[in-house]
């Protein structure tokens, strides 16, 4: 009896979670594919929801390029990024607390922790090596950047 209840409960839970989970997986795949056509698919937790919304609302003017997408794809990617943003599920990391609510940070590379950790030594290295290209090319130095591993420097 207990087994049956467990099975039924698991099946029901499975049904409840399978939908959103599948959608999240699809959103993740689409986000990786589209963003990484030009740059690392920066992890969603690097920016708060309001930043992702602003970025996804102006793709035709994306940091000096037109990166427009069909609206369905655009919406799916925005939903995925919002769900994983720095302020997801009521979180509020300290670096984010220091930014006023009415300020919308647009560049990860301009966040105070980022500029603090990437001082002149890193800036010179980027400037000297054309193969790196720009400070936004995380994977040039952080080999695990695509998987969210940045502690190798």
């Amino acid at each position, binding site marked *: 009896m207990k087994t049956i209840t467990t099975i039924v409960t698991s099946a029901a839970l499975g049904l409840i979670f399978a939908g959103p989970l599948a959608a999240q997986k699809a959103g993740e795949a689409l986000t990786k594919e589209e963003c990484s056509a030009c740059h*690392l698919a920066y992890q969603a937790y690097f920016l708060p929801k309001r930043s992702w919304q602003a970025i996804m609302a102006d793709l035709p003017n994306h940091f*000096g*390029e037109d990166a427009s997408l069909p609206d369905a794809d655009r919406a799916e990617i925005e939903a995925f990024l919002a769900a994983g943003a720095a302020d997801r599920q009521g979180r509020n990391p300290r670096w984010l607390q220091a930014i006023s609510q009415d300020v919308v940070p647009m560049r990860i590379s301009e966040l105070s922790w980022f500029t603090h950790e990437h001082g002149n030594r890193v800036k010179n290295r980027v400037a000297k090596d054309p*193969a790196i290209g720009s400070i936004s090319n995380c994977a040039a130095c952080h080999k695990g950047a695509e998987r969210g591993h940045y502690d190798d420097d």
Partner: protein
Amino acid sequence: MIKTALLILTTSALLVGGQAVHADPARDKIIADLARAAGTTLSAQRGQAFFTGTHSGGKPDSPSCSTCHTKDMRKPGATRVGKPIDPMAVSVTRDRFTDPEKVAKWFKRNCNSVLGRECTATEQGDILTWLSSL
């Protein structure tokens, strides 16, 4: 049967005119459709001039297709962030221009970035004719 033969003949004629040497049915169709929409003979030479030339009207950081794709189509390019882009020459990157949605998406974006407008069917057809001949 006759229709198919005619279609093949027309397509080959267009391809010979455009010097596309690396045949692929999907790519050939994309170029044939552009040729039809353009209503003129496509020109690899015009395509090269357009692609490697400097334009105005677009975004300041990308005045040319060569900004990212370089001028040597057999070499990899790089995005402005520094991520490599596979070479555009079809002889080097075999699956280039075989997915019509991908081709349309990037023409729309990149022409807008470089020229501040969409590229015409003639411009697109010229470019693909050139890149397919390399």
